[in-house]
């Protein structure tokens, strides 16, 4: 059984939008993989169909069975990491070796507040529809929503 590892610099896993994600990957595999792929991605989890966005991919060809390498990605302005009752958006780094199915994933938080944005229901507070959708839209857009 091989081993893949993603280590973030200073064990930091919370980042501001537009920030730099840096760290190191390590691999110790039973056989020589043809390729190692490190991706920065987000995906949704919740009631509906899963959505995935892959932002950047670093590919190492013929990496050998054992090794390590540094990585650095620049985050986009959004979407932010968020969670509601129906959907969560989760950012992650994913390292995969090919052939085979060895995969390791390291979750990170991308948020201007330093925490995952929690979407709470505002129904019944007398606010208009526009205000109710504001937190969600801000998370998706990655910028303050000024309204329609």
């Amino acid at each position, binding site marked *: 059984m091989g081993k893949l590892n993603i280590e973030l610099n200073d064990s930091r896993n919370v980042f501001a939008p537009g920030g730099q994600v840096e760290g190191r990957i390590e691999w110790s595999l039973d056989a020589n993989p043809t390729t190692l792929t490190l991706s920065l991605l987000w995906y949704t*989890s*919740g*009631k*509906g*169909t*899963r959505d995935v966005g892959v932002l950047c991919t670093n590919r190492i060809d013929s990496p050998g069975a054992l090794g390590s390498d540094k990585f650095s990605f620049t985050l986009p302005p959004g979407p932010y990491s968020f*969670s*509601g009752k*129906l959907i969560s958006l989760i950012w992650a780094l994913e390292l995969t070796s090919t052939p085979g199915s060895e995969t390791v994933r390291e979750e990170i938080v991308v948020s201007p507040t330093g925490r995952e944005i929690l979407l709470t229901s505002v129904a019944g507070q007398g606010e208009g529809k526009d205000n109710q959708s504001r937190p969600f839209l801000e998370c998706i857009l990655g910028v303050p929503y000024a309204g329609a």
Partner: protein
Amino acid sequence: MRARDNPFAADRIERIRYRFVGTSLDELLTRLDDMNYRAAITGPEGSGKTTLLEDLREALEYRGLRTKLLFVNDASPLSEAQCRRFLSELVPQELVLLDGADAIRRSSWFLFRRHTVRHAAGLLVTSHRPGLLPTLIECTTTAGLLQEIVRDLSPQTPALSPAFLRALHNRHQGNLRACLRELYDVCAKAP
């Protein structure tokens, strides 16, 4: 409860594989071989046909067979032109896996059935109703199966009692997908 913590989130449900009752994957593969790879997986909505087709695909490819999978449903219908293109790109070594054979037009189905006799290694379909091809297996669900899946997904949710799950299974007429979607809502309401 946050969506990511919900034990019935779609990505967790997708990881559930088909559970055999009274047969096994190996038995089914042997039967499929005996049927010359022309067969149908039948059963009502939410009974595991697509999951089983995906599992069979993995097993067939592991055994060295080439497969070509096509999903058809109301949300992604298949036009006559798409059907012809799909068939024209087939190579004789490929086994066609068609999910939703009863969702395609009758003329396209006849084309599929006829074309794959000579130009493919076989045709395995899923269908709500029997009769399109000889039945390989009829998928069914039970309240016990739902309980087993719920126990695996959410072992610490006491509100989901066997009686509640039996009633749920009954209300959705055995449609496990619908049952699990409702259970998502039950958990989402929890603090």
